[in-house]
């Protein structure tokens, strides 16, 4: 069941689109915001609410990089792996990150604190290498000081 808050948020967004099914991506994002990720159950709830086929919504949900179909940690790290960051030391940064966290890209720390994901260009190529933690952009990250960046996120 979608919560009243989720339903209300979806209905509010719906006013910006020409019809109900068009709101599918918005609904997925809203449910993800409330629950951290989109479970099979959450997906079925949205499909029912928008009156679209669950398989159709599933094909949308799995298409986009930032709809999570598996649980993620409390904080999501998006590390840019595109060309300018690669030139400016992405590999070293990734080494330090995986060592610090004890996980590989795509995984979540056992304590549920961080999920580490690669992401295409964050539009900070002139301040590379770049990464995001949740909504925060961190630019020109010194791989040796990546622990300090992570320390801000409990």
């Amino acid at each position, binding site marked *: 069941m979608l919560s009243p808050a989720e339903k209300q948020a979806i209905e509010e967004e719906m006013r910006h689109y020409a019809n109900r099914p068009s709101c599918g991506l918005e609904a997925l994002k809203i449910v993800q915001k409330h629950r951290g990720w989109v479970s099979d159950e959450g997906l079925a709830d949205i499909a029912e609410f928008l009156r679209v086929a669950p398989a159709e919504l599933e094909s949308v949900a799995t298409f986009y990089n*930032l709809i999570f179909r598996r649980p993620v940690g409390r904080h999501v790290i998006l590390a840019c792996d595109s*060309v300018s960051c690669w030139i400016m030391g992405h590999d070293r940064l990734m080494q330090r990150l995986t060592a610090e966290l004890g996980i590989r890209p795509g995984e979540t720390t056992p304590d549920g604190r961080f999920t580490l994901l690669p992401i295409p260009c964050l539009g900070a*190529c002139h301040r590379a290498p770049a990464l995001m933690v949740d909504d925060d952009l961190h630019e020109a990250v010194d791989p040796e000081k990546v622990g300090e960046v992570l320390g801000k996120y409990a």
Partner: protein
Amino acid sequence: MEKPLTKNFLPNGAFPDLAAYELAGGYQALRQALTRMTPAEVTQAVTDSNLRGRGGAGFPTGRKWSSMPIGAGAPRPRYLVANADEMEPGTFKDRLLIEGDPHQLIEGMIVSAYAVQADVAYIFLRAEYTRAAQCLRQAIAEAYGAGYLGGNILHSGYGLELYLHISAGRYMCGESSALMNALEGRRATPRDKVLRSTDSGLWGKPTVVNNVETFCNVPHIVTHGAAWYKALSRSADGGTKIYGASGKIKRPGAWELPMGTTIRELLEEHAGGMMDGFALRALLPGGASTEFVLDEHLDVAMDFDSVQKVGSRMGTGTLVVLDDRTCPVGMLRNLEHFFAQESCGWCTPCREGLPWIEHVLAAIEEGRGEAGDLDMLARQAKFLGPGYTFCALAPGAMEPLTSGLKYFREDFERHIGERRCPWRG
């Protein structure tokens, strides 16, 4: 030198709010267009200015708008979309424009929407641009509050709703027909180009899609006129351009300069040249999907037509610089990894071909390359080029590859011959 697009940028990372924007002359173009000009006059001014789309392809903006049906019998609602997806690796200009002066984009969109008589406008923003989203939310609310958005703007009889759509992340969303599918809540696969979006776009209605930087130019064209705008430029394409550069250079960044500034000036004057101990090997002039150019091409003017004459494209105008201490094969592997991952899977050559190309590049870089690999790559690149795929993603992916195979042949051969990457020691 005039810098209309960035003149209101504040040094401390803040952005001019409505009051500051108005104080600097903001929303005067809107007032002028909506109360003293017809929609056709606005489109004419933009046509006369030679403004070419800043999304990468350089399509003349006035010509695109002219194909919008706007008469009394034309279909409604009509839509206008700002493409703020900006996922082209190496490109960061639209983010700076939004964060630096969000009202400029909004005013540009309203004036443009008036020209094509749109009823609803969207800003299609990529999700990772969280600060840009904050700036836009505040600026849109302020614009509604001041009566620049909503019904009957400035008692002109013209009304426009403007919504912010935050994407869920996929490079293909930037392709304008895929963007419309994404806005309709579908997978971002491209649409058949037989129908123009100005005839059948969002929800089957007439739709104009333009890049953020394109819209930002419009208020200035309306205020100062086409002649002034053309005079800003050093080339046939009008206006200024937000150029940028990244890589091992002394001062990576972005600069607003006359359209047609040379690559050498960008690199040497504005970017301060290469970092100490590094030499220039080659560069991509305008993002990941442009061909490499070499030292001998540096004096070319950065505008849409000139860069094509040296076998590349201006693209987004943000240079990605390859230095002599970075492996070109590794760089190509990184680029093709991006394209393979972001292929939407709609057509076979791209869906199957890009992962295969990435696989072969990875093998070469790791010292497992075979003698026939380079010919195979060249052949693949041909069949992923223009005409063989459903959209421009795959041909774009081949631009760095074909030029790389040409310019870095020796490096490729060394990897294969020595069975290792010489840069990894």
